[in-house]
């Protein structure tokens, strides 16, 4: 060990090197600030998205579809003649990185499209409140809209909405006793489970047994054993990611004959591919866009087809739920800016609150009291048949 004095000399020197490199880096980072001069001022949209870490499977789909929507709008001449300029920042699936990204973006952005990770969004929202910048959230957490944050607008249907749509399906299908299993570590799942229990009574449904598991769980025979010994007529599972797949595979082998009901988090190939044949016959709630091909011709069908065609052409597979969210988010923002006649933040906010727009996710109707926008009407209850999502009779009736 060297003497402390020498250590400190080193310290002072290395610190000055560090400072210098910091300054250089920051200068380099700041280099893009002045761009966009000349011609029409572009509309600057910042996107905070999880490109690395746990939520990257969602984030990459968000980013692809946001970029696709921006390209399409720009190709069609922009919004009010102004092009959209997109700046993307990775939050690494970490809330504090989302805050960093927000701070980097806020001064140079007319609006922000938010992270698919609910913790990131919730960390950013206090800053959104302070900065008063329109924030289009791509995560469904109910906490974002309850209470209403003036500048925060949520795109995906929230867990509570999914729960209510499922209850409507149960009521219509005369399933009055439903077993519930949920991931205690996922805020989406916890919110969904709570929503289901809270509203079950209104639809004449009793929820029993209630089973808990963890995101890391790989084995679910205990849940199936408990459900088998109950009189439940369906099993509804709230989960995201890996456990949903493992559970579905094991459910297929469990010998249970009652319907397995899953939610929007499973309405994509990210679930269908790994689950394989085990997913056959599983009931999955999704946004209507996922089953766009079964929609009757009309405004909604057109909106869905526009995305599906463009997305499939570019990436080679149909757009999953998270892609629909990203695409819808950009559409909503563009419509609001158009309506506000510019990028004045307060005006865009007001425009969003009075907006009604049909996107691949359904028809949004934001209001001062409701920043969620989607109703249960735009949630389809589907069954997996031959590896595809097919609307149940209940939903086909509704779609007509």
């Amino acid at each position, binding site marked *: 060990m060297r003497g402390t004095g020498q250590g400190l000399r080193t310290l002072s020197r290395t610190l000055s090197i560090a400072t210098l490199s910091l300054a250089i880096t920051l200068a380099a980072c700041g280099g893009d600030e002045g761009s966009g001069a000349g011609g029409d001022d572009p509309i600057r949209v910042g996107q905070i998205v999880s490109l690395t870490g*746990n939520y*990257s*499977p969602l984030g*990459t789909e968000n980013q692809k579809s946001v970029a696709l929507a921006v390209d399409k709008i720009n190709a069609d001449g922009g919004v009010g003649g102004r092009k959209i300029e997109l700046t993307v920042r990775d939050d690494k699936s970490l809330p504090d990185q989302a805050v960093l990204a927000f701070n980097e973006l806020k001064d140079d952005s007319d609006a922000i499209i938010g992270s698919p990770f609910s913790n990131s969004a919730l960390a950013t929202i206090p800053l959104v409140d302070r900065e008063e910048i329109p924030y289009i959230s791509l995560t469904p957490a109910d906490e974002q809209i309850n209470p209403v944050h003036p500048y925060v607008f949520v795109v995906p249907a929230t867990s509570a909405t999914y729960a209510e749509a499922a209850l409507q399906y149960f009521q219509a299908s005369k399933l009055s006793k439903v077993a519930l299993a949920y991931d*205690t570590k996922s805020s989406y799942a916890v919110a969904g489970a709570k929503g289901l229990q809270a509203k079950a009574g209104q639809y004449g449904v009793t929820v029993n047994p209630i*089973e*808990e*598991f*963890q995101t*890391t*769980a*790989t*084995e*679910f*025979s*205990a*849940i199936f*054993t408990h459900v088998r010994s109950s009189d439940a007529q369906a099993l509804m599972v709230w989960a995201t*990611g*890996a456990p949903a*797949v*493992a559970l579905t*595979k*094991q459910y297929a*082998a*469990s*010998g249970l004959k009652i319907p397995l009901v899953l939610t929007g988090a499973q309405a994509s190939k*990210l679930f269908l*591919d*790994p*689950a*394989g*044949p085990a997913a056959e016959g599983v009931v999955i709630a999704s946004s209507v866009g996922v089953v766009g091909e079964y929609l009757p011709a009309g405004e909604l069908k057109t909106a869905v087809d526009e995305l599906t065609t463009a997305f499939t052409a570019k990436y080679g597979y149909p757009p999953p739920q998270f892609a629909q969210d990203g695409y819808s988010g950009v559409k909503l923002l563009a419509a609001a800016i158009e309506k506000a006649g510019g990028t004045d933040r307060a005006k865009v906010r007001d425009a969003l609150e009075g907006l009604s727009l049909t996107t691949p996710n359904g028809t949004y109707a934001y209001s001062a009291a409701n920043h969620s926008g989607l109703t249960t009407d735009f949630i389809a209850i589907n069954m997996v048949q031959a590896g595809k999502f097919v609307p149940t009779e209940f939903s086909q009736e509704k779609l007509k």
Partner: protein
Amino acid sequence: MSDLLGYIVTGLGIGAGFALVASGLVAIYRVTRVVNFAQGAFAVLAAMLTASLLGSGVPHGVAELGGVALGAITGLLVGVVAIGRPGTSPGTSLIVTLGLGVLAYAIEILIWGDQPRSYPGVPGVAEVGGARLQAHYLLIVAVTGPVFAVMAWFFARTDLGKALSACASNRYAAQVVGIDVRRMGLLAFAIGGALGGLAGVLTTPVQQVTFDSDVALIVNGFAAAVLGGLTRPGVALAGGLLLGVAQTLVAGYGGGAYQVEVALVLMLTVMIVQAARTGPVAETAR
């Protein structure tokens, strides 16, 4: 009663997966004194390759073998970096394997993307004493048993196995009799890689695999291995099975919300009891 039996058999199936990861850790640790943090990555890489091979039409069996082979090769490569430089202490090697585990993320995402993968295993349902379980669990148990038997035979009956055990028992003496300890260490890494790969290949059909599945594997594997002080493959097998059964029983009769804690608290307790019994081993980490 049939519930209990079902939990136990399923627990054994899960535990066999843990045991394979654990035995890979043990195989490497005995010979090199390195706790290999990249052990979970072997499983992930093997499973990913198997999924790709099956997807491109390679028949079952061959695809799985390919996965295990990739595990072994990866093990060897990790070994070369972790212990290849003369004078690398086990503590340093531990941090190197930690780094290589993260590097594996980059490689996996580059090649296979960040989406989960899975492939079908043994289809259908088996009934054991009135309890239903996925038939694939029986395959896992059926493969794990002979693998451990072959390992026991290899270490106890073949000269190469004895040489590996010799390195584990007394490194200096092994050098004295002319055993190339470093080469044996690399062999151990390759064996550990193959065992890790086998774990991944076998367990993926009942679950799925993502690039970061390795954390759960390594934690459970370490918990199983630590029961035998990281040096006894037989105890690691017992540890893995115990851990698997404990988890299914807790989920079955307690609740599924605390499964992770069960494994971790068990691991901590075992380590602390062992340390209290043997006294702190002076082993600096770096």
